[in-house]
């Protein structure tokens, strides 16, 4: 058996629906059509009452999920693209994220955000929103980079009693494959060493894990051993694993596909500088997309985001210091 990242997301939703009658799926075109990316393909056939097409109303979709969760349901909302969650932003950050704190009543909803860039998708179908949502207290932000994590972390998200923003990367949907799924995954909030090394640490997440591993493989030819840490969950963030890695290597590069101002990479560097300044042999570096909207043309798009080539260049600079 072999399955893709996208199929793992579909399988996880099937399994969530099968396990718990309180789970339901809500989103645009997710019913008979199976979703814009087919992440819910055939699920309505299997669970006709629990896979519901919504109007194009992101605000109401999240509001409905919140209300349903208060009544004991476990909704999974599909945003057609992460970018469109901006239209449901208010309900996410003001209603869902504050609910437990204000009322002592948890709000278990999972919001799936098909995230990140693919060639030709342009400014409004390519965004990475994890940094924006991570800013707000009361949300869990997951960014799976592997087929196995896409599956297990989505199931974990549904069983968690808090609102979860599940950032699944569209670039990984079709080409990332696994032969089988392990019985269990790492717990939420635990980072993973994607590739061990001792000369520098790269902290990254989501699709950038693969770019960073490629860059590390390239540097290996020159004898550099680069450790790649896959955060898996950007909030909660596993500071222990990051600091332990920096303690081994003394050098840190953070890589993210999101825009450069603030965000996850800045947060990682801030935590390492605060708690592990003495571990650093060089100034910590970060690499993000350019500070412009995400371009449409593939030539521009490839130059806008970090790639193995410029991650490699950044690492060489870091190693020279």
């Amino acid at each position, binding site marked *: 058996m072999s399955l893709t990242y996208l199929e793992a997301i579909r399988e996880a939703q099937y399994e969530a629906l099968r396990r718990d009658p*309180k789970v339901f799926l809500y989103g645009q075109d997710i019913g008979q059509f199976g979703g814009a990316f087919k992440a819910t393909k055939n699920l309505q056939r299997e669970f006709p009452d*629990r896979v519901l097409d919504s109007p194009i109303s992101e605000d109401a979709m999240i*509001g409905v999920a919140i*209300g349903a969760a208060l009544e004991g349901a476990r909704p999974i909302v599909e945003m057609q693209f992460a970018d469109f969650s901006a239209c449901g932003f208010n309900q996410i950050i003001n209603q869902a994220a*504050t609910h437990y704190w204000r009322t002592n009543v948890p709000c278990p909803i999972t919001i799936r955000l098909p995230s990140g860039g693919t060639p030709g998708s342009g400014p409004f179908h390519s965004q990475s929103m994890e940094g924006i949502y991570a800013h707000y207290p009361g949300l869990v932000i997951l960014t799976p980079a592997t087929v196995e994590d896409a599956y297990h972390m989505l199931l974990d998200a549904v069983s968690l009693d808090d609102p979860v923003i599940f950032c699944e990367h569209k670039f990984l949907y079709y080409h990332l494959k696994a032969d089988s799924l392990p019985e269990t995954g790492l717990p939420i*909030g635990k980072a993973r060493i994607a590739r061990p090394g001792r000369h520098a640490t790269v902290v990254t997440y989501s699709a950038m894990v693969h770019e960073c591993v490629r860059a590390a493989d390239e540097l290996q030819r020159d004898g550099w051993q680069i450790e790649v840490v896959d955060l898996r969950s950007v909030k909660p963030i596993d500071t222990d694993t990051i600091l332990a890695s920096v303690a081994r290597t003394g050098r840190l590069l953070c890589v993210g596909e999101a825009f450069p101002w603030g965000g996850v990479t800045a947060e990682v560097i801030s935590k390492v500088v605060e708690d592990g300044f003495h571990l650093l042999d060089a100034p910590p570096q970060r690499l993000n997309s350019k500070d412009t909207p995400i371009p449409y043309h593939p030539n521009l798009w490839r130059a806008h985001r970090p790639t193995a080539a410029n991650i490699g260049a950044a690492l060489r600079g870091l190693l020279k210091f």
Partner: protein
Amino acid sequence: MAAPQTITFTEQDATDDFRQQYLVTYRHMLSARLLEDRLAALYRSGGKIVGGVYLGRGQEAYSAALGVQLKKGKDIYAGLIRDQAGRMAFGEIMLDTTRTYLGSALGPMRGRDGNIHRGRPKEGMPAMISHLGTMVSVVTGMLLARRLQGTLGDTVGATCIGDGATSTGSFHEGINTAAVEKLPLVISVANNQFAYSTPTTRQYACDDLVERAVGYGIEGYSVDGTDLAASLTVFRLAVKRAREGQGPQMIVGTLLRLSGHGEHDDASYIPPTMRKTALARDCVTVAEEFIQTQSWLSTAKLKEMRDEVRHEVDDAFSQASHEPAPDPYKEPWRALSSWKQLEGDTNEA
């Protein structure tokens, strides 16, 4: 879909059952009025009230007339900022109000949120946020979950908003979604002529907000919101229709806010001429006169009721004012309910 109707009270509606409901509702109105008068006085005297004070003065009849149709423990009621009367009619205890306004740690929000944002979601009272229109889809979702779980039965979910909130995208998206799902949502619009200081001419361009019901494909009703008898009649009908499975019901009550937006606001933007129209009738006075005209209660009995309510208000303020304030050193400062689980896995949440 029938055209929106204007509902009025006719003498043949004055059954025994109606009389009883009228008197119960009047008592809730009076409770809300006396409670809010005290809140306003405490606000002005300074120091006692934590945060702002937002009153429902002039809207008690319209507000309570909906709350009294619903059953706590069965139905859902999401009141907004001017629904002290409706909340009480639904079954919220007075202490929830005084504890929240006076900052008692024992209130439903434990000092984490204030005044009109209070709620008890597990008792059918979701806690509103400040962003208007957002509760429409939340109540819709509560009803949808009940349908999915087979527990909807003949329950209804009601939510209240004002003329200003009808301009929000949330309002539109929420009602449209409830209409698509044909859920038993009762949406009460209190058209009190001003959203903060903005008059209705700067808020919408249709003749009457109830016309929107036609566009949503739902049933709509207009009513004089200063008239308790008419308000009870319309909400009885609308709640019954929703219980029977006739889908969302939209009611627009016309009235005037007899206070500022909050007690910090002197409402000097309300034209004096408007204050002399029927819109500005005080619904509590109107209801009291109606009770006397119908000879349902004597002047002495009305006074007795007022004294009783005043004692209840005194007790609620007295108890809350002697209770502890929230302690920042006892606060866990965690925004996730699963923080223990997550922090067991890592060092940070």
